[in-house]
């Protein structure tokens, strides 16, 4: 069962698109034309629109001219010319530095780093230059037109250097934004927002979904707001927070949990920096439990930031410790990938999901139900005895 629903041999269902969950989506209304697209096509469409709508925008990076190693830039050079869409030398620090220069002159530079694993040579330019460009100049200069796109995440066979999730490094940098879409429709809208946002944005694309994820994507020009998380599945017993490809895994975990009578609320964070604390807080205050899941190694991962923040804001509402179901603290392994990955079964068996407050308990322990409501309204009176009882 686990292997069937496991990561490597399933047909991908885009999270939030079915299963009767109410989607609070800010994209197209039903009358707009849509097309069934995969992730790289949706991104390609976004890039076409971006270049079309702003003549001062550029797309460049290694191999983007012929369409890119993931075909995200197909057709752009032919349509907009080699002055605006071009290959660069193999030099990430040059790519980002050049992009900063272009952006500082008021242009939009959408640069591609071929794999997020190779973004580190550009780390100095991103952290010391792009992120601080506006602040250090007293707002005389800015490079807000810069957007850095990079495929990230596990792909099944990527190993150390084609699978990394480096988002946590960038979430620690005031001055940039970090955005991660979960699906084709989200990617198009979020990428257009990122490109048009007046701040430098690092946009990680889940490479696993480039071909695997197919969704109805509106054909028109639309944007999905940054720093707004989305509840893609409503529930009452536990909140699950994730981003990117991990949401498909988490949705499977939600389905499994539903069979056991656990109602899960699933949130797509979308923007990790600055992140929407309010949506997660409101959800955890409702459910009392939080599970965060990401592919990146657990230690120092972005889940730690979410956990710490929610703890600060929702401590008295929490019924269990915050769970993190993440990658192991190892370099991303090749043959061991199935063991490394935060699979749905790891999520299902985590403490938060495996022992929630079950509905039938309410029926059996009427008095304790009453106590629970009473304690919720008078949080200071929660005693340790009561907490143990309801674990």
């Amino acid at each position, binding site marked *: 069962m686990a292997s069937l629903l496991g990561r490597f041999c399933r047909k991908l269902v885009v999270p939030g698109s079915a299963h009767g969950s109410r989607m609070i989506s800010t994209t197209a209304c039903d009358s707009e034309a849509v097309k069934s697209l995969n992730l790289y096509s949706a991104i390609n469409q976004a890039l076409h629109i971006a270049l079309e709508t702003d003549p001062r925008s550029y797309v460049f990076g290694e191999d983007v001219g012929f369409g890119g190693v993931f075909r995200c830039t197909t057709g752009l050079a032919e349509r907009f010319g080699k002055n605006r869409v071009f290959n660069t030398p193999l030099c990430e620090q040059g790519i980002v530095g050049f992009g900063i220069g272009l952006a500082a002159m008021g242009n939009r530079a959408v640069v591609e780093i071929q794999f997020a694993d190779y973004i580190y040579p550009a780390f100095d330019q991103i952290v010391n230059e792009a992120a601080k460009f*506006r602040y250090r100049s007293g707002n005389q200069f800015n490079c807000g037109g810069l957007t850095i796109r990079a495929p990230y995440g596990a792909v099944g066979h990527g190993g150390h250097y084609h699978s990394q999730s480096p988002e946590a490094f960038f979430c620690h940098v005031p001055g940039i934004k970090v955005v991660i879409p979960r699906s084709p429709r989200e990617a198009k809208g979020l990428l257009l927002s990122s490109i048009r946002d007046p701040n430098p944005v690092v946009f990680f694309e889940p490479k696993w979904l480039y071909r695997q994820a197919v969704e109805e994507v509106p054909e028109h020009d639309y944007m999905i707001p940054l720093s707004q998380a989305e509840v893609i599945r409503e529930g009452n017993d536990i909140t699950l927070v994730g981003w990117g490809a991990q949401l498909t895994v988490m949705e499977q975990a939600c389905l499994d949990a539903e069979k056991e009578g656990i109602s899960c609320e699933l949130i797509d964070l979308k923007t990790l920096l600055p992140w929407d604390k309010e949506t997660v807080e409101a959800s955890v205050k409702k459910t009392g439990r939080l599970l965060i899941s990401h592919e990146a190694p657990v230690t120092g991962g972005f889940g730690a930031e979410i956990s710490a923040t929610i703890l600060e804001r929702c401590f008295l509402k929490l019924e269990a410790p915050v769970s993190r179901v993440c990658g192991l603290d190892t370099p991303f392994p090749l043959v061991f990938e199935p063991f490394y990955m935060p699979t749905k079964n790891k999520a299902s068996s985590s403490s938060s999901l495996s022992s929630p407050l079950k509905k039938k308990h309410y029926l059996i322990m009427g008095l304790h139900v009453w106590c629970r409501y009473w304690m919720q309204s008078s949080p200071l009176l929660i005693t340790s005895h009561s907490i143990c009882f309801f674990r």
Partner: protein
Amino acid sequence: MAMLFARSRNLVSSLRQNLGLSAILIKRNHSSPRPVFTNYQLSSRVFLDPSTSFRHESTAVETQPDLVQQSDHEDDAQELDFPGGKVGYTSEMKFIPESSSRRIPCYRVLNEHGKIISDRDFIPVSEKLAVRMYEQMATLQVMDHIFYEAQRQGRISFYLTSVGEEAINIASAAALSPEDVVLPQYREPGVLLWRGFTLEEFANQCFGNKADYGKGRQMPIHYGSNQHNYFTVSSPIATQLPQAAGVGYALKMEKKNACAVTFIGDGGTSEGDFHAGLNFAAVMEAPVVFICRNNGWAISTHISEQFRSDGIVVKGQAYGIRSIRVDGNDALAVYSAVRSAREMAVTEQRPVLIEAMTYRVGHHSTSDDSTKYREADEIQYWKMSRNPVNRFKKWVEDNGWWSEEDESKLRSSTRKQLLQAIQAAEKWEKQPLTELFNDVYDVKTKNLEEQEVGLKALVEKQPQDYPTGFHI
């Protein structure tokens, strides 16, 4: 490529170089890739002194005489076809030597006594321009001296001087047009001074007061002014170089009569960004002038510990970039070289590299005492005998354009103005506390708003923990 072929077939002697050429080893490239843009003529030239005219062609590029000595083994009727084009082959195994037997010579116009060496290639400078250049070089000297002392007195936290490099600072700025976008390293305040940044504005940044355009966020000397097309200084070394390539490309796309001009020290050329910047500028055919101030020292690291090449000028060719070595302490030479390079960059849409040879007379900064790693005699020699300001002064005086009276008047009035500027800057209000949180993003984000509220409450509660004067 400067291929040096030996005459003898003997392997040992084949390593002997056979040089006949003394001039700049540039080959006019007839097989350049199809240009994306056609060259365009300048419709108007915006220079500070319109009365000057060129005495020589703008593209002072040497065609390479045939210094390739045909060896018996070479059959140049046969060529090999590889990606990158055709290349002749030889069955004689020869290694290109690690360096030429002779270093690339240095272009200079004035000798050490301020006399024009001969009627050579240089762009004449009018009296008006020359006097202004000299005044600014002297002003820079006074400014450096006074701000340095202010740091020593504890009035500002940090300073670094450009002593010894006044000619590079001022003459390069004078050779540019105001629309050229400058991306400095940090030892080029003279460029900003030339463009009109006032002594008060310099002082305000050093004090980080309310009038500082940088809003007090960075250390002193991290000047920036969009009005003067001078990008804000940042401490990391060489990061500006690939950015300059992007800026140059933007100017090209906008079809502006302008180029990017960026500065770097000898030490900075060891950074990866140097390679990235030059390579990108060359491949993208961006109008960028790279000016390297080779002043001999990167803090305590002498250039002998920095690279093994013949300085920086030889690196240009490795990227397909036209380069020149110039006497950085000769204001006229710097002026001519930068102006020519700028013309080339703009009209031919290509990068140019200038290595300006000089010496860092001052310490690296106020946090450094350079007598710890170099001889005081050496410093003194360069300060006195090889002083670029004195050298140019002699030429200006010899022309009858400057007198001792002018000199003392300038120095005392500048000094007075600076002391007043410092006193005024010291008294200025501090930045309001909210500026700590602005401009991280274009609009303050929620987490910053919360932190600001929290900090303000804390400051009000425990004011003794915090410095005074910051309006909440």
